[in-house]
């Protein structure tokens, strides 16, 4: 026993019953070291790539802040574009315009998307429609946004004869619907079956079960999906170029060409004037900031309201 100093006293009864060939101290040591090395390697690899992502993020944000930060002033939020190359003013109308466009798009896109999601999750088990709907949703979610822009142009700009805010909002709504539908479906499917059964067993109708039990159980994660959809459309430019066009004037009338942050950024960034280019950078900084805040809100929601089953 003295020859095996690494053996603890309470190991002994077990050790006595085990074939000793693979328990030789030497071999075991090498095996242990190799296993630890592999584990360390894996850790280092993961850490390295994480650091790379963080570095890219830091690069983007740092670049943005260093260039756009100078142009970002109170005036950015309070003034309209002046049209003068040396004193370009601000983007007040674009900020408000983007807000209104998103609100209008949500007003149309969220109910449609959520209803489709509820249908897919709750009503479609026997229906031949479910498969195609799901497939089309996935397809639409992957359609390049410029296609949506041209569709909006053909359907809502050409017939009306001029660019307008409605067309922009509808184009954004069109982008939101498949995202919201699929997230809603996925989150509702996660709600345990027994919740539905409990409600049905108490004599509730299917509609009541869905509205009072199933959807509320998944509220937190559905809100997360909605926020993601909003963040996605907040940054869309192509569909708006063809539909809302953009405007230098502050307008609340969606029948007019409608301003938006992304189109304003696009116009300034592609223009010839350095001061306007700088303002475009400030606009990008604000946009990134908005999406950052939105993401924080998502995190807050998904943390405070987990699906009820977990």
């Amino acid at each position, binding site marked *: 026993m003295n020859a095996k100093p690494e053996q603890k006293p309470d190991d002994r009864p077990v050790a006595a019953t085990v074939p000793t060939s693979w328990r030789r101290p030497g071999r075991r040591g090498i095996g242990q070291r190799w296993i630890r090395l592999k584990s360390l390697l894996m850790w280092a690899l993961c850490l390295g790539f994480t650091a790379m992502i963080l570095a890219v993020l830091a690069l983007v944000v740092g670049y943005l802040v260093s260039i756009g930060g100078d142009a970002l002033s109170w005036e950015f939020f309070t003034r309209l574009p002046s049209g003068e190359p040396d004193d370009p003013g601000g983007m007040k109308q674009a900020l408000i315009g983007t807000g209104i466009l998103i609100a209008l798009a949500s007003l149309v896109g969220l109910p449609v998307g959520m209803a489709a999601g509820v249908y897919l999750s709750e009503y479609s088990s026997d229906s031949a429609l479910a498969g195609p709907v799901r497939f089309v949703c996935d397809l639409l979610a992957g359609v390049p946004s410029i296609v949506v822009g041209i569709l909006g142009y053909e359907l809502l700009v050409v017939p009306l004869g001029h660019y307008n805010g409605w067309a922009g909002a509808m184009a954004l709504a069109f982008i939101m619907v498949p995202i919201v539908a699929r997230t809603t479906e996925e989150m509702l499917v996660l709600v345990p079956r027994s919740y539905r*059964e409990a409600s049905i*067993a108490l*004599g*509730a*109708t299917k509609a009541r079960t869905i509205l009072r039990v199933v959807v509320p159980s998944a509220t937190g994660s559905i809100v997360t999906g909605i926020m993601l959809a909003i963040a996605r459309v907040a940054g869309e430019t192509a569909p708006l170029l063809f539909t809302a066009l953009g405007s230098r004037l502050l307008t609340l009338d969606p029948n007019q060409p409608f301003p938006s942050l992304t189109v304003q950024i696009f116009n300034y960034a592609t223009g010839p004037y350095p001061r306007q280019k700088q303002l475009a950078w400030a606009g990008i900084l604000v946009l990134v900031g908005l999406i950052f805040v939105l993401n924080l809100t998502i995190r807050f929601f998904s943390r405070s309201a987990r699906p009820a089953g977990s």
Partner: protein
Amino acid sequence: MVTTQPRNRDSIRESREHSAASPAVPPAARGTAPLRAADGARTTPASPPPSMPPTAMARAESSAAATDVGDQPFVHPELAAEQAVLSIEDFQLFYGKRQALFDISMKVPQGKVTALIGPSGCGKSTLLRSVNRLNDLIDHVRIEGNIRFGPERVYGRNVDVIELRQRMGMVFQKSNPFPMSIYENVVYALRIAGEKRRRVLDEVCEKSLRGAALWEEVKDRLHTGALGMSGGQQQRLCIARAIAAEPEVLLMDEPCSALDPIATGKVEELIHQLRGQYTVLIVTHNMQQAARVSDYTAFMYLGRLIEYGPTATLFATPERRQTEDYITGRFG
């Protein structure tokens, strides 16, 4: 480890064989005996006292030779005297092509606790869920035969399933409180029925929570979320919710299988208190629990009803070989 384990297994098998073969140890006297002794006095005075193993053994052995799966189920004559609230009549159920229930016929007596026992997959939960037509929610389920609830046919042509379900309460294996306040959970069934008077709702809420032995624990936080409660409390909340609409039948699908022993004890105590007021049909995996809480026990095996009788009798002197094998722990 490697060398000791087989030896252990051998010794276990040996001791099992030994005790199974030994005529001195009556099969029913193992495991469930003390519980049954405690329960026998409380439930059915007509049941044979537990201290008569030789006869029990003799009966079990004599019947074992004659019976096998496929024979008619044994239904104790005592059940004929009971007033049935639910009658299951030649009930068959298919999941797609697979048949899950075969020719089940049994009457569930009013005001009594009836337990369904049997090994996993024997169809006891399926049978329970057929009573309030929860199986309708599952695709490709087909049934034959019928279930009578009072004078009504549960699977009748013009039956109002919603109304039917309102007359039955159900408690599930996993507690499933809705994502709303404790109060709203309890009065959910009343809200469905359209009750709006605050006073009535308050009254029912308190009464149901008291009925579920939960009132004292939650009366100060009725309007907080139900998901913040402990597992045992959640399950008792589900019971409160199920009895709030004063159902005629309470269906319980393994209500204690996810609970710790203390919470289980509370729920079982509750079932004792509900006896008489409600007709309870309870599925349980746990034979001791069936012995503790039920008046009648039905043993199911492979989708068939094998034996159905007073709990004490069934555990002491099972008529069928499969019943005996199951309650003595030879399989399941």
